[in-house]
């Protein structure tokens, strides 16, 4: 009794041998199948079709998001903290990009109305780099006037009404209306002699204007001998460079007369947030779009 099963290996019957062989083959097939399927997730990445506008601070450079896709733990905490719900998570068609955050600027751009880059702060893995302190340091992409022929400013046209129609779901923060809560673009009609929405709503340009105002207040406070707050004193949230402006360009109309047109011109302070692409009131695709960035180098 005591030595049974200890010294001799029990001989397997032919039937059990065959069944264990079948199990081995099944297991090998399962392993091959599942690994092949998981590797299929690399295809969209290798084909380069998954590069998209990512939240600020994403570890990426032009056409290489490898670090970002690897560092992201796919939890969506960035999605949850965004006050304008600009961030979405990618689906299975993006392979290993599944669950990784992206921004569809035409639908809802990042307007930095959180002020503090909440998504960067929320990121548990540093896939959105913590080296980023201020919106002006971000480089999500770079705006480009892709369809100048449809641009209202180029045509010398004004704009009256709501920018994207009354059914548009996107929101923006309008400081003059509510400093803390973004409101639907559809509830904010414009009446402009010359359309300058891309410049008017650019968060960088808005901030620069505010900074100029603050500087005036600071100087007045200094003159009056009252102590200004540290942030007012140093203005370290002030974007150092302009992002976009309307530049006059001379051209000829169909009758050969010289006319001056206003051309939205993207400057090197552009952070690629996509607000210009969202707000652009032309039908269909925007006249100005944000390209996958050429100058990011967080990676």
């Amino acid at each position, binding site marked *: *009794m*005591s030595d049974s*099963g*200890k010294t001799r290996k029990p001989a397997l019957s032919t039937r059990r041998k065959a069944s264990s062989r079948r*199990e*081995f083959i*099944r*297991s090998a097939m*399962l*392993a091959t199948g*599942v*690994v092949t*399927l*998981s*590797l299929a*997730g*690399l295809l969209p*990445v290798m084909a380069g079709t998954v590069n998209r506008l990512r939240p600020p601070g994403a570890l990426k450079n032009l056409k290489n998001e*490898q*670090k970002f*896709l*690897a*560092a*992201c*733990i*796919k*939890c*969506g*905490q960035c*999605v*949850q*903290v965004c006050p304008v719900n600009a961030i979405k*998570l990618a*689906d*299975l*068609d993006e*392979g*290993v990009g*599944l*669950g990784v955050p992206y921004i569809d600027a035409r639908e809802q751009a990042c307007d930095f109305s959180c002020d503090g880059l909440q998504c960067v702060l*929320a*990121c*548990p*893995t*540093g*896939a959105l780099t*913590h080296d980023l302190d201020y919106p002006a340091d971000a480089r999500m992409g770079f705006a480009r006037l892709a369809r100048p022929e449809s641009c209202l400013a180029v045509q010398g046209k004004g704009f009256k009404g709501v920018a994207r129609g009354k059914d548009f779901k996107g929101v923006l923060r309008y400081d003059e209306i509510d400093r803390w809560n973004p409101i639907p673009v559809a509830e904010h009609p414009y009446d402009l002699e010359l359309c300058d929405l891309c410049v008017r709503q650019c968060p960088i340009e808005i901030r620069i204007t505010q900074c100029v105002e603050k500087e005036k207040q600071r100087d007045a406070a200094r003159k009056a001998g009252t102590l200004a707050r540290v942030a007012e004193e140093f203005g370290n949230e002030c974007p150092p460079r302009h992002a976009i402006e309307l530049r006059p360009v001379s051209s000829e109309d169909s009758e050969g007369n010289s006319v001056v047109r206003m051309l939205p011109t993207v400057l090197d302070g552009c952070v690629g947030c996509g607000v210009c692409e969202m707000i652009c009131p032309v039908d269909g695709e925007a006249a100005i779009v944000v390209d996958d960035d050429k100058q990011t180098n967080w990676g």
Partner: protein
Amino acid sequence: MNYIKESLSQVFGNKPTRPDKSKQPEALKEIYASKRGKLTKAALEAVELEHHGTFFRKWQRRRWITLILVNVLFLVSYKFDVQLLEGAMTASRFIGFHFADLNSALQVMLAYKHVVLNLVIGTTTVFVMWLLLGGRTFCSWVCPYHLLSEWAEYLHLWLVKKKIVKNHTFHRKTRSVFYVIFALLALLSGYTVFETISPTGIVSRAIIYGPGLALIWVGALLLFEVFYSRRAWCRYVCPIGITYAVVGTMSPVRVSYNAEACHHEGDCRKVCLVPHVLDLTIRGMAHDVNQDVGSDCTRCGMCVDVCPTDSLNYKIKGLDKFL
């Protein structure tokens, strides 16, 4: 030490070690001998019938409620902005504290080859939490795919009973092979390859952020489990299970077996997700009168619920010394 070694051996796919009969304690041998010829079918049925009426499925009920509550808390935290549990199963913040799923964190570390402090904090917190709570407790008490798979399992068992489908088993070492492959793939490719097909992450995100195409993959897995192989993903593939089973080797929360009243009829093994851990309930297979179930056990409590003689119970190792 023996518990850890034996547990790990089972986790990585080996059969439980047969006890050396010469080393089995006399008390256990007497218990086995005393049952000879006494365990009649009628007696067994009587005990089972009595058991049904008492607290059948108590732990399953508690577990399902916990699992649903945790996943609903994720959803509610986001939808109503209550900020209790933000994020998803892969990484989250519970009242501000970082939590990171150990396996997802491991994939990220291997692929990205760089670890930020937040991730270290999140991983440590979760490690300590599951160390205290039992390791694979994650699987049965929290993982949303586990519940879907459990429902699919009922369908599968019904179809098997009707002789419409047959269960196909795989070798349990396949899961260890997957573990190594997925770790290597993350390390070599630089992408978190496993996360793409992990139903845990997919289902968790679908609950919180809304459904997507990825649920098709989860559906396919469930169909595979219903029509081909019982609980195939959890049993033979998922590396998350291995990660937490390793943590569980050092956990005080275990299911404990007492051989005294056991009928060895095997009801516990029939309901178990990982029946190899319950091989010790087979007559002659226990090493001692009281023995803890290996750490591959998900602490789901199905065996505790189903055991007609109360021979399987939860225990917290070391707690009896304090009480």
